[in-house]
């Protein structure tokens, strides 16, 4: 073994290098205050290792970035742990950077002859911040997308070449594939290479001058190995433990279900770094905030209005930074060092105050809280949708979210329907409009309850009742529906119908829609209903006298159109689409219609979402379909 070592040493001289590395003198003995530089090297090493492995799973494009991170976080075993390590070590690095900086200033280690190394340190700090900024965008979630937009838009304020700089960083006029390829190349290629090179220089120059001993006579001189190395290693272990705590922060909350989560491979849902909903340029995310260590800059910007913004964004932060480069010169004088200490303290206290102000302001803001809750809901929902579809389509995850009736149905209902209709007494978004409803409540549309309600009390408040408040073409609608044919029919006939007959017609109609949200149809009852629909009993006027219908599975249409809406496929998506598109068609309300035609107002996708929302056709995780039953319970 020794012979091999000698052979190797003859050819490489590694012992001399190793010796120089390990036996650096430490006057005054090993101390805890010297550990910060080493912890930074350690955190950077962790970032290199975890980053390289993440690289093997990451795909930078606007249709795959979020999706690949999703796959890392939720599908790949231990992916959440790897990503958590990378995410939280990045945050630890910022804190360690601040501590290292403080120690250098306090110990006067920036003064001659160490100016160059201090400057190298300042540049390294910029690179680490650059890594943070570029890394924040890579998951391509709402938070990173919108927060980074602000950062790149600020770059347009750079005098003269601002817009060009922005376009170069973004890789085009808008965020897209090339924003990600560029940010990724910066994050994983350019910046780390620069960092490694400058870090090597930083350490080389540091070794040249030796450690700045705060108190050389404090203890006997020692060497880097093993005394300081041990202290450094313990400090690194401490950093790692903090990172692990951050990864497993939610563990106490989920202690009861840990085993279950692990067995079903769902640990990524509770541990590690957060992954928001996929970035969507059409969904403004008003809770977008930069990472906490940039919050002070975010808050600082609020003090600059209009044309003065450039001062808050560029001139002042740039000036503060440039001034730091002068600190070694100022520090030549005794008072100068004190000034530097004061300057540093002011900066740190200032940044902390601004950070606190930013957090405090958001804490009381309802719009912020609502946006955070909404983002949280959407990030859970997209997970359900991908599970339901067993993967993302080629158009990416954002398309799944955009076409989800559960999320966008209520929004569309509130925007297009709630001016007249209600959805279980609200507007679809749980807001009760001040104006009274002027049309039916569609919360239960197409269910047994809805249909039997319509048969027995068509002029009731949930059905035609509200139409008395409506105006059509400037004229009050009056009693066109509340005393219309259906209402008159109910007044005359319902009393002579048995409950079984009412239920059977409802069962028959419910069977026409073949909707997946309706509990299984009772075929016998439906057949009775079909019979009643066509022939009724002796005392009752038959449904087909007004309503045309081609019963499901039959070739012939019963009745004729022109009197009342045709009920073929009643309640189904096709029926709804036709009705919403053209309620005034002869086979719908015809001349009596008072509802706008939505065929031209809504895009095909919007119509699809609305129709699926009204017929409750959206994906639910198998374990939370309870809300279906609530609607359809008999």
């Amino acid at each position, binding site marked *: 073994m020794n012979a091999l070592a000698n052979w190797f040493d003859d050819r490489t001289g590694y012992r001399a290098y190793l010796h120089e590395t390990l036996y650096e003198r430490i006057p005054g003995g090993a101390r805890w205050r010297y550990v910060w530089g080493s912890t930074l090297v350690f955190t950077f090493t962790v970032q290199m290792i975890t980053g390289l492995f993440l690289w093997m799973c990451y795909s930078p494009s606007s249709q795959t970035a979020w999706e690949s991170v999703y796959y890392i976080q939720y599908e790949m075993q231990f992916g959440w742990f790897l990503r958590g390590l990378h995410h939280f070590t990045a945050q630890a690095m910022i804190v360690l950077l601040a501590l290292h900086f403080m120690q250098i200033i306090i110990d006067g280690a920036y003064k001659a002859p160490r100016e160059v190394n201090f400057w190298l340190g300042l540049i390294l700090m910029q690179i680490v911040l650059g890594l943070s900024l570029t890394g924040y965008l890579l998951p391509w979630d709402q938070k990173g997308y919108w927060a980074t937009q602000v950062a790149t838009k600020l770059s347009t304020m750079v005098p003269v070449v601002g817009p060009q700089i922005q376009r170069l960083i973004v890789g085009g006029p808008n965020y897209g594939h090339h924003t990600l390829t560029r940010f990724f190349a910066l994050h994983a290629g350019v910046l780390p290479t620069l960092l490694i090179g400058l870090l090597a220089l930083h350490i080389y120059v540091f070794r040249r001058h030796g450690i700045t001993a705060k108190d050389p006579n404090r203890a006997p001189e020692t060497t880097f190995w093993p005394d300081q190395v041990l202290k450094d290693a313990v400090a*690194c272990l401490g950093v790692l433990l903090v990172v692990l705590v951050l990864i497993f922060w939610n563990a106490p909350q989920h202690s009861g279900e840990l085993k279950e989560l692990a067995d079903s491979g769902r640990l990524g849902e509770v541990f590690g770094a957060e992954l928001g909903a996929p970035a969507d340029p059409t969904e403004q995310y008003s809770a977008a905030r930069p990472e906490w260590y940039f919050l002070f800059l975010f808050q600082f910007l609020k003090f600059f209005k209009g044309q003065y913004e450039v001062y808050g964004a560029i001139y002042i932060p740039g000036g503060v930074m440039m001034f730091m480069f002068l600190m070694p010169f100022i520090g030549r004088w005794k008072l100068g060092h004190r000034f530097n200490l004061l300057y540093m303290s002011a900066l740190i206290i200032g940044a902390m105050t601004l950070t606190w102000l930013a957090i405090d302001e958001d804490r009381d803001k309802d719009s912020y809280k609502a946006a955070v809750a909404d983002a949280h809901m959407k990030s859970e929902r997209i997970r359900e949708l991908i599970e339901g579809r067993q993967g993302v389509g080629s158009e990416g995850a954002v398309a799944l979210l955009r076409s989800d009736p559960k999320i966008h149905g209520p929004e569309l209902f509130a925007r297009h329907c709630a001016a007249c209709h209600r959805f279980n007494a609200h507007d679809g978004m749980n807001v009760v409009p001040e104006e009274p409803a002027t049309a039916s409540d569609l919360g239960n549309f197409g269910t047994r309850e809805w249909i039997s309600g319509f048969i027995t009390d068509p002029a009731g408040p949930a059905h035609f009742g509200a139409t008395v408040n409506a105006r059509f073409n400037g004229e009050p609608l009056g009693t066109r529906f509340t005393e219309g044919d259906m209402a008159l029919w109910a007044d005359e006939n319902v009393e002579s119908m048995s409950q079984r007959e009412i239920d059977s017609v409802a069962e028959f109609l419910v069977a026409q829609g073949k909707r997946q949200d309706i509990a299984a149809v009772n075929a016998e009852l439906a057949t009775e209903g079909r019979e009643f629909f066509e022939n009724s009993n002796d005392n009752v006027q038959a449904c087909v006298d007004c309503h045309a219908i081609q019963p499901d599975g039959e070739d012939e249409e019963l009745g004729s159109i022109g009197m009342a809406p045709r009920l073929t496929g009643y309640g189904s998506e096709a029926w709804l689409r036709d009705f919403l598109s053209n309620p005034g068609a002869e086979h719908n309300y015809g001349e009596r219609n008072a509802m706008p035609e939505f065929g031209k107002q809504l895009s095909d996708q919007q119509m699809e979402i609305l129709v699926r929302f009204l017929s409750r056709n959206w994906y639910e995780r198998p374990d939370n379909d309870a809300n279906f039953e609530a609607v359809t319970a008999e």
Partner: protein
Amino acid sequence: MTDDSKSTYPLDMPEPNDPPQPVAASPLPVSETPQPAMVEPRRNFLSKSLAVVIGGIVTLVPFAAGLAVFTDPLRTRKKGSGNGDDDGFIKVATFDELPVGDPPQRFQVIDDRVDAWNMFPKEPVGTVYLSRSTEDEVLALCVTCPHVGCPVDYDTARHVFQCPCHNSSFKPTGEIDNQDSPAARGMDALEIKIKNKNEVWVKYQEFRPGTAEKIAEA
């Protein structure tokens, strides 16, 4: 290289403000001149061991995490066919499309394709050769050459399957045709089911190339 003797070396270290010493042309005699240790040996040994152990642990954690994720493909099971029946058979053709006799026909296999986070429902995922020697006798062959996995062509003039890469050739029944074929086994037959009297359903599988034995890929 971490023996205690080296701790005597600080005495030889350059002064902090000295220019860096050029690397010695001949290696320093680090471990050849043991001298009494400056620090108490036991404590020093403990420090060194602890430093190595703790240093090892902290670097091992990110590396182990990375390896655990990197090896994920070894553990994840392939997802089942969404287009096939309960046994994984997929409908590939009907007898109308498959006349009796030569030559074998190539058919697309349509299945749900899972690619990491993506799921593409009902896409062509591969092809199979089907041939019908008699009215109700169907043979399904994997198009992949069992040699090293090139797709095999059918030579209609010579009535053999011919691999364009390394000249393996196979009879229409899939058996090895030439004596010096580099392939170690004949073409891989796929399990089939005939449903509704004229539908050919195939269990689409890939097999490990290069072995004499037919081993299905997981």
